[in-house]
């Protein structure tokens, strides 16, 4: 699998969550994702970027265009140096929240993606990767 393009953006506050949505949309359009596919990954990105701002003290988003010779995809990796997530299973459950949200962010982002990986260590931070492939359901 090849990475054909990549870029890193910093996400510190609410205004940058909005720019993340716009940047991810642009990258999704570039590899020809359908409107529904675009909307799903942009929405997932919005949830994860907000989590990073609200719980991780801000962080970094890396965008990558992927090409595995049969299909193209968009991978987004969100990395913060926040407190980490003590219980991933609980955090993925709908309705679980330690803040003022609805607790749909993490589980929702997972459902809206074709691939989802999470690495977290209490006290060190969290790294979440999501991928959306063109033409995958």
């Amino acid at each position, binding site marked *: 699998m090849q990475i054909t393009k990549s870029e890193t953006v910093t996400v510190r506050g*609410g*205004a940058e*969550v*909005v720019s993340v*949505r*716009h940047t991810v*949309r642009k990258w999704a359009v570039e590899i020809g994702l359908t*409107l*529904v596919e*675009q*909307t*799903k990954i*942009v*929405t997932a990105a*919005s*949830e994860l970027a*907000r989590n990073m701002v609200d719980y991780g003290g801000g962080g970094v988003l890396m965008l990558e265009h992927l090409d595995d010779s049969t299909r193209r995809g968009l991978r987004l990796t969100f990395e913060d140096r926040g407190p980490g997530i003590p219980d991933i299973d609980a955090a993925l459950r*709908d309705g679980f929240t330690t803040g003022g*949200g*609805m607790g*749909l*962010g993490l*589980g*929702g982002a997972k*459902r*809206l993606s074709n691939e989802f990986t999470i690495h977290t260590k209490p006290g060190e931070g969290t790294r979440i990767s999501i991928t959306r492939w063109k033409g995958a359901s």
Partner: protein
Amino acid sequence: MERIPILKMGRFLLVSIQVDMDDRTAMTLQDDLTGQIVKHHAKGVLIDISSLDVVDSFIGRMLANTAAMARILDAETVVVGMQPSVAITLVELGLSLKGVRSALNVERGMELLRRGAVDMEWTTPEASADADHEE
């Protein structure tokens, strides 16, 4: 920070969200709307989201909360113009916006508000025309 304008038309308040809102702008809109409902004794609120190509859980929650608050303040809320891709994504996200009245476009949304009876949404076009005459 941007502020979303609220228009007053008779007993109704109209909002057309034309920008991609950050969370603070969304919360300000919620506060402004509840304030305006009380100030103008509004009976209905129409929120047009046809320009929004993303509605995430925060904006979705703002819409649901606004509708709930409006109801307590004796006003009905109709959200109109949601793009199909947004609807598909919202449901998959886990947000079905239960309790939020919706309509396909501004015209139908206004009709719902004018009838003032949300439980009448399944009435036929003829029946709704009759209801208009009675007003």
